[in-house]
């Protein structure tokens, strides 16, 4: 009985993620349009695009292998899994202990490897170019992300995300200077990983600058829909991760229906503000040249290491 109900709750969390992710992307696009003085697209645009793409037929290149066809499903599954591992509605869900922070980074890496392989599979120039750039950004962003997780792990003495969030959420009056550093580093990594503006532009199709778009040029129909949805889920997972690590208040540690409802409300509220801030950052900053991206991510790595050092200096008992 206990097991069945927790499974249902996990399912609810997954469905919430699947439904909220396109909404979050739509919200960020809307905010960006407002900030740029354009008339904003409706919030439901992303859902309609997905529906349209699912109805269209898939056009495959003649030399596309089975890897090319399997990749969208693998990527989508990876991103759906990460969205369920990150504690969003409660820290006491069954999939929470299934993977810790390091495994989470591994799942993100798995999805990245598959999207890069699929991009190179057909053999177009753009695919290989995008794959190379994606791997460049990925291999620089990953250590920084791990360092951020290590800082949070040092504070809570555990690499399990549920424990980290529970520990951080409990002590409300403590200010962690290290987490301030880690927060800045995480924001930079999240912008880079989700193909947002300082590193990549999600709306561009200009061949010289695109990274993520270059990799998925060959996809169409339901494959493209799955990949777009997976990208939205990745953004959602990263946002929830950031909120869980740096603003953990409002995530309950039990699974009572009322606390889950409150958690959902606070999550939507926090995501709305986070999305607005993301749009603000994107509007205020210019896209970096691709060769400046290592510097950007190097700064993120440095900040994450500083966070660890500051934690060791200021926050350990002597």
């Amino acid at each position, binding site marked *: 009985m206990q097991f069945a109900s927790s499974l249902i709750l996990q399912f609810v969390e997954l469905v919430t993620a699947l439904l909220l992710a396109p909404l979050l992307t739509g919200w960020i696009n809307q905010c960006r349009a407002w900030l740029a003085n354009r008339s904003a697209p409706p919030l439901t645009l992303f859902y309609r695009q997905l529906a349209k793409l699912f109805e269209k037929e898939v056009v495959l290149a003649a030399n596309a292998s089975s890897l090319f066809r399997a990749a969208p499903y693998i990527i989508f599954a990876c991103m759906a899994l990460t969205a369920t591992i990150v504690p969003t509605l409660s820290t006491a869900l069954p999939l929470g202990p299934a993977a810790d922070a390091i495994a989470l980074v591994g799942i993100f890496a798995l999805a990245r490897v598959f999207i890069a392989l699929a991009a190179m599979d057909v053999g177009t120039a753009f695919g290989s170019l995008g794959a190379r750039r994606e791997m460049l950004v990925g291999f620089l962003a990953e250590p920084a992300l791990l360092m951020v997780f290590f800082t949070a792990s*040092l*504070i809570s*003495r555990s690499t399990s995300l549920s424990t980290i969030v529970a*520990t951080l959420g*409990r*002590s409300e*009056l*403590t*200010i*962690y*200077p*290290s987490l*301030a*550093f880690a927060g*800045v580093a995480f924001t930079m990594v999240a912008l880079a990983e989700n193909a947002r503006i300082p590193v990549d532009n999600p709306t561009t199709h200009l061949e010289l600058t695109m990274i993520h778009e270059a990799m998925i040029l060959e996809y169409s129909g339901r494959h493209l829909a799955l990949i777009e949805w997976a990208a939205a889920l990745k953004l959602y997972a990263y946002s929830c991760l950031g909120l869980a690590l740096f603003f953990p208040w409002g995530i309950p540690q039990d699974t009572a229906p009322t606390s889950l409802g409150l958690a959902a409300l606070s999550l939507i509220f926090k995501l709305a503000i986070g999305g607005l801030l993301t749009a603000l950052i994107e509007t205020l900053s210019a896209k970096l040249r691709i060769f400046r991206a*290592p*510097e950007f991510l*190097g*700064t993120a790595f*440095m*900040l994450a*290491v*500083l966070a660890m*050092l*500051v*934690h*060791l*200096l*200021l*926050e*350990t*008992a*002597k």
Partner: protein
Amino acid sequence: MSGYPALPVYAQTINLLAAILLLLSFAMLGQRRIISLINLFMAQGAVLFASTALVAAATNQHHLYWSALITLVLKVFLLPWILHRLIRRLNVKWDIETLINIPTTMMIGLMLVIFSFNLALPISALAGTILRSTLGIAMAVVMLSFLMMITRSKAVPQVIGFLSMENGLFFAATSATYGMPMVVELGIALDVLVGMVILGVFFFQIREQFDSLDIHHLEKLKED
């Protein structure tokens, strides 16, 4: 909570401000534009003022209020104003050239931070103040400003590095011993101000002689 000792809220806030001070030092190290560099220096002064005022309030050390006030007037308003005026009159808006590229500088800076944190650990164990753990950060700020003075080839960023080093020293004094005696503090404040004015004159002289503010021209100075 296992790791974090139960510090009072003001001490935690001071720790946070100290961390921001370190962050600003790194931002200065990685900054390419002179105007942003001055603004960062101003922000550093503001953080220093806030932390000094907070220490004064927390420990009832009245002379620290004066130090905080001097910091506010000198480092948040006067010096940035002079610097802004200087670069406007010198017309130096170009990007800063560094001797080592910026990511490498950052990595060296990281090493320096580890070094100074280690160096400060035994010293801060001797100090009896509430801020003793921030001594490492103060030393790191001094080291990073040093690094900035070494890696920049133009005169204005070097002067900003020098001023930022003074910020670090001031913070070290506050964190280790609740500030220096008033006379010393006033003396240093005046020194910095006069130094700034003299260096301002120097800038014009250097530029007049070499048509550039790159101090490497000074190496070619010969008596003939």
